[in-house]
């Protein structure tokens, strides 16, 4: 028997293999499910909840949900998009996200997903937290105002770069990223500009120095095409251009 297993995503048949998540199978089939803490190259995490879908009447996180035969997955009804939009609004008011003044604008996944869901304003009252900037590292700067605590840098530094440069510390609304150094500064860690962890940030919280505005605003990745078409910024990285600002590499 070689009949393929499938589930339905917005009415469309999506084939999947055993052990695959709804997210994996959908992305493989070229269907976009918005996500931030998830990066298809790494283990699923399930913290941002942006990839929430409705499966047979229940809300589930598609990046951690194993695909099942005959599932009816709703990825685009207004009810689901509204939930995503509200979650995004929460992320926007939790930090200090000033898109016009951010070097990542146009290549930022948070911003692109917000556009994709039709988020027009932050809706909630801003928390205006006091968060620091760490510019101690010669090649990399950290704007914690823009951190959405997705933990991607933590996971990739620990599991891929094998350096464990970061950790999420504290809990609840006091959760924050800390560095693996007695001084608490980035410069005293083993972090290098070539580390994978540096390029996975879905926002402008981790940026390379010396490359500011290489690509003009208006010509950047998501300025050209929506995220539902081009996908994650991180997948367009190459050794030559570690931080994609423009369109996909030729």
């Amino acid at each position, binding site marked *: 028997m070689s009949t393929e297993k499938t589930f339905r995503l917005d009415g469309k048949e999506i084939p999947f293999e055993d052990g695959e998540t709804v997210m994996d199978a959908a992305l493989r089939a070229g269907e976009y499910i918005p996500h931030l803490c998830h990066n298809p190259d790494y283990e699923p995490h399930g913290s941002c909840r942006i990839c929430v879908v409705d499966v047979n009447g229940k809300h589930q996180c598609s990046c951690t949900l194993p695909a099942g035969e005959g599932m009816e997955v709703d990825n685009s009804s207004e009810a689901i998009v509204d939930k995503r939009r509200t979650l995004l609004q*929460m992320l926007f*008011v939790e930090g200090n996200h000033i898109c016009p003044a951010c070097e990542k604008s146009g290549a930022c996944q948070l911003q692109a997903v917000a556009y994709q869901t039709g988020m027009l304003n932050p809706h909630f009252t801003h928390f205006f937290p006091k968060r620091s900037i760490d510019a101690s590292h010669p090649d990399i700067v950290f704007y914690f105002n823009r951190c959405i605590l997705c933990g991607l840098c933590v996971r990739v530094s620990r599991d891929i770069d094998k350096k464990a440069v970061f950790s999420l510390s504290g809990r*609840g609304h006091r959760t924050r990223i800390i*560095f693996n150094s007695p001084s608490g500064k980035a410069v005293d860690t083993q972090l290098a500009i070539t580390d994978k962890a540096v390029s996975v940030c879905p926002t402008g919280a981790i940026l390379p120095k010396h490359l500011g505005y290489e690509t003009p605003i208006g010509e950047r990745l998501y300025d050209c095409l929506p995220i539902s078409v081009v996908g994650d910024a991180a997948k367009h990285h190459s050794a030559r251009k570690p931080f994609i600002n423009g369109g996909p590499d030729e």
Partner: protein
Amino acid sequence: MSDISRFVSGLLSDTDNAPDLLLQHLCSIQHQYSHIPEEAIQLLSEQLNIPRVEIVSIAYFYAFLHTSDRGDFDIRFSDNITDRMLGSLPLLESLCKKLGVEPGKPREDGRVSVDLTSCTGICDQGPALLVNGMAISRLDEDRIHKMVGLIEAGIPITKWPKKFFVIEDNIQRRDKLLDDVITRGSAIEAFAVRGSDALLESIDKSGLRGRGGAGFKTATKWRFCRDAPGQEHYVICNADEGEPGTFKDRILLNSYANVVFEGMTMCAGVIGATKGFLYLRGEYLYLRPSLESLLQDRRDAGLLGKDILGRKGFNFDIEIHMGAGAYICGEESALIESLEGKRGIPRNRPPFPVTHGYKNQPSVVNNVETFVAAARIAVFGADWFQSAGTEKSCGTKLLSISGDCAWPGIYEYPYGVSIRQILEDCGAEDTQAVQVSGAAGFTIPPQEFYRTIAFEDVPTGGSFMIFNQQRDLLDMVQNFNRFFCHESCGFCTPCRIGGTLMENLLNKVMVGHATAYDLEEMKKIGHLMQKTAHCGLGTTAPNAILDTLEKFPGIYSKRLLNRSYEPAFDLDAALGVSRHITGRDDEAAHIRYER
């Protein structure tokens, strides 16, 4: 060799440098030095081969761990709503004033800190506090006054009056579980004689469901775990009784711990485990010495260790692991993370602990009360147990009753008992509301007092808090929401941020600046949390707000502004800083809103 280095080496020499003991080491260091010194972090990092950043992040995760010194006397007032109803806040103020200390900050000489903490599980004998981790009950002005004398004289708490630390069982009603104590070893004996299949059948037939609140069938859980492949299997007893208003496990571990250990040992026999853990909440540190000595007694009697009851190959032992002030660790997968020495972040599920639990091996995690019930079913049989309760909720349930009633304490009832009956029995009068199943539970108004305690009606882990007509229920709602903000692990967006948004909106209601629009906002945020949060903490955190909005709309509406919208920016509150600086608080220094 420094003192710290000697202490840390001493901790590590007893163990094979297992990283899963990290949290336990940190608890010991905190206890010894009243904080986690930098030197200890470095030593642990080097010797356990754990990045220092992870050790620091764990220290910041657990409320009872600190990287700065808390002094010789580290005092935390239990801040459950029931403590407040018994007058905890004026007592805290009084203590702070007498000691000359500001809440949350060590005193200038560094000798004493006074702070708040989540419910310590002494609601029936409150107000309560912890001093250097040890519980003191029945606080009053006199006790506070004496404490000040002892602290200023530098008397170590081991020399404080014994009566300060007396925590009574306070059992008001007994039924099947508390009636009489079974003979030590009898449940294990029954299991050993009848075998695993017969015991599982008996537990199945008894209808026993998990007593933590979720109500999963115990026999099914044990069977799944037994049949799951793995190098090791583990039995874990969840004694992280953190739900505000619950204290039944305190009694079970104080006076029925032998039965708890019988249940765990039986379970080990069934699933083939050789190792078990009792995960004890940090607030119950005072129970640890007696539990440890009981475990030793059982080893000496051949009821734990090698060849239990002389049966070859029946090997099992129990280790006690301490929690360190994290409600989330009551969630079974977060508890397992914590057992492994990590931050208590709930795992993604599936897989479930029955197949991938502690160290990714099949594990049974059960509530303390479930193990007690299972042990007694083994001795007295399924029919005995099933004869009480309802069709879907067999047996009895321990309720921890506190709040506005004449006789707070532990009440054991057959499932199916009505809330009205309970209120009558505990001497509650003029009741406005009952909060069943803790902060995460249900707010029950008088018109629903006919409802019953049962999985199919009002399920509960055991918390039962009573509020009379004189109480402002909004105080309760605010207390619970702050609790969840404090206890959220911060992993997922809706819980981490939703709690703070709720807090801000509740404050807006409290100060009389909210409109009907704001109540709709609270509903929207609450429903989002219920639908999209990562774990049970996040999905239940908005319950009290949503329940009271629906069933007690008056507590909100009487405070609302009669207009369609009111900005979140509160001009009067913003002037607070100026008022503080100028020392003014007269009428002209305020901007008053019309109702």
